[in-house]
């Protein structure tokens, strides 16, 4: 028997309080990551508020995962807002598909479910064995695989980087003028990674997808997803114009660096929407 979606959402309120209590030991490192990223441009009070919203969004995302396949088309349409759809349409007009790049936003799966609903299905590029230092050894052993399996019927349209020929599958989708989504804040997505300053630290980012985009000749569109299934916004930035460089290494360094800057700006604008703060 299923609980109504509205009731499940209501469970989120006490659950968020409980989760915040359980996360107390992690809060100092979360505050430290936020302070470092904002370089003292936010007061302690603002940092506290952001971290509270961040933890609440964690719970909202978990709830969204439970109800995602039960959301009705009309609800998704009513609760959504798209900014920059014309940017995506311009990118697709070249008939070479488009690569949507973003970071791990809490609302990403809801946004993709909505896009599928309006006739813009997005193939997600995923890692079957994601790195998550927060999950611990026992979690990694018993939960990781189950979590990936749990997400399969929610995401539906996916390709794993461990699959043989996964790049060809991506290429095929682009050829059909389709959309492919890559989270660029996951270094394990590529054999080649490049280090950049990011949110006050140095982090590594995957570069392989840019090579793929160049060979396939497809546009790269930075995207951001904000909110949760009750109200969400998808932002498509202007198609990213790649700078030609004298060799491949400088091409990757220059262009990936600019995409990392875009991602950093998006995260600083909506810090409570990015799920990797605690992994930094």
């Amino acid at each position: 028997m299923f609980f109504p979606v509205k009731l499940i959402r209501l469970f989120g309120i006490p659950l968020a309080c409980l989760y915040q209590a359980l996360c107390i030991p992690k809060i100092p490192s979360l505050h430290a990551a936020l302070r470092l990223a904002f370089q003292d441009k936010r007061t302690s009070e603002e940092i506290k508020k952001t971290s509270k919203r961040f933890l609440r969004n964690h719970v909202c995302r978990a709830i969204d995962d439970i109800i995602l396949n039960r959301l009705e088309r009309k609800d998704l349409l009513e609760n959504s807002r798209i900014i920059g759809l014309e940017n995506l349409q311009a990118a697709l007009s070249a008939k070479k598909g488009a690569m949507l790049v973003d970071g791990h936003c809490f609302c990403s799966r809801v946004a993709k479910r909505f896009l599928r609903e309006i006739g813009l299905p997005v193939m997600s590029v995923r890692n079957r064995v994601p790195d998550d230092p927060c999950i611990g050894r026992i979690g990694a052993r018993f939960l990781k695989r189950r979590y990936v399996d749990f997400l399969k019927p929610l995401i539906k349209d996916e390709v794993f980087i461990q699959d043989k020929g996964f790049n060809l599958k991506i290429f095929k989708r682009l050829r059909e003028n389709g959309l492919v989504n890559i989270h660029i804040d996951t270094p394990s997505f590529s054999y080649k990674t490049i280090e950049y300053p990011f949110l006050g630290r140095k982090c590594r980012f995957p570069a392989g997808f840019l090579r793929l985009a160049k060979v396939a000749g497809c546009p790269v569109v930075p995207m951001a997803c904000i909110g949760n299934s009750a109200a969400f916004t998808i932002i498509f930035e202007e198609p990213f114009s790649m700078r030609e460089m004298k060799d491949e290494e400088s091409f990757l360094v220059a262009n990936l660096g600019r995409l990392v800057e875009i991602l950093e700006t998006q995260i600083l604008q909506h810090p409570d929407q990015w799920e990797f703060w605690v992994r930094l």
Partner: protein
Amino acid sequence: MNSGDDIRQKIKGVLVDTLELNLTGDEIEESASLDQLLGFDSVAAIEFVVGLEKAFDITIESEFLELEVLADLDRLSTYIDGRISKASSR
């Protein structure tokens, strides 16, 4: 028109160029698995496809963008031969 052998040689040439191998097309054995040479998890597989399309002036259809086709020299040359014939009969 390209003969089967010409096509095979040209495919090997594209492979050598794509991977920047220090070999000639002749030095790639007929029995060689292109899969192992290319490393199909890399972008090189896509560069290979794009290279083939340019070299033969064809478009490889989506349903043939499969590892089994691309990694098999016999199937690949038969497929390309078919595409060339189709294009020239128009």
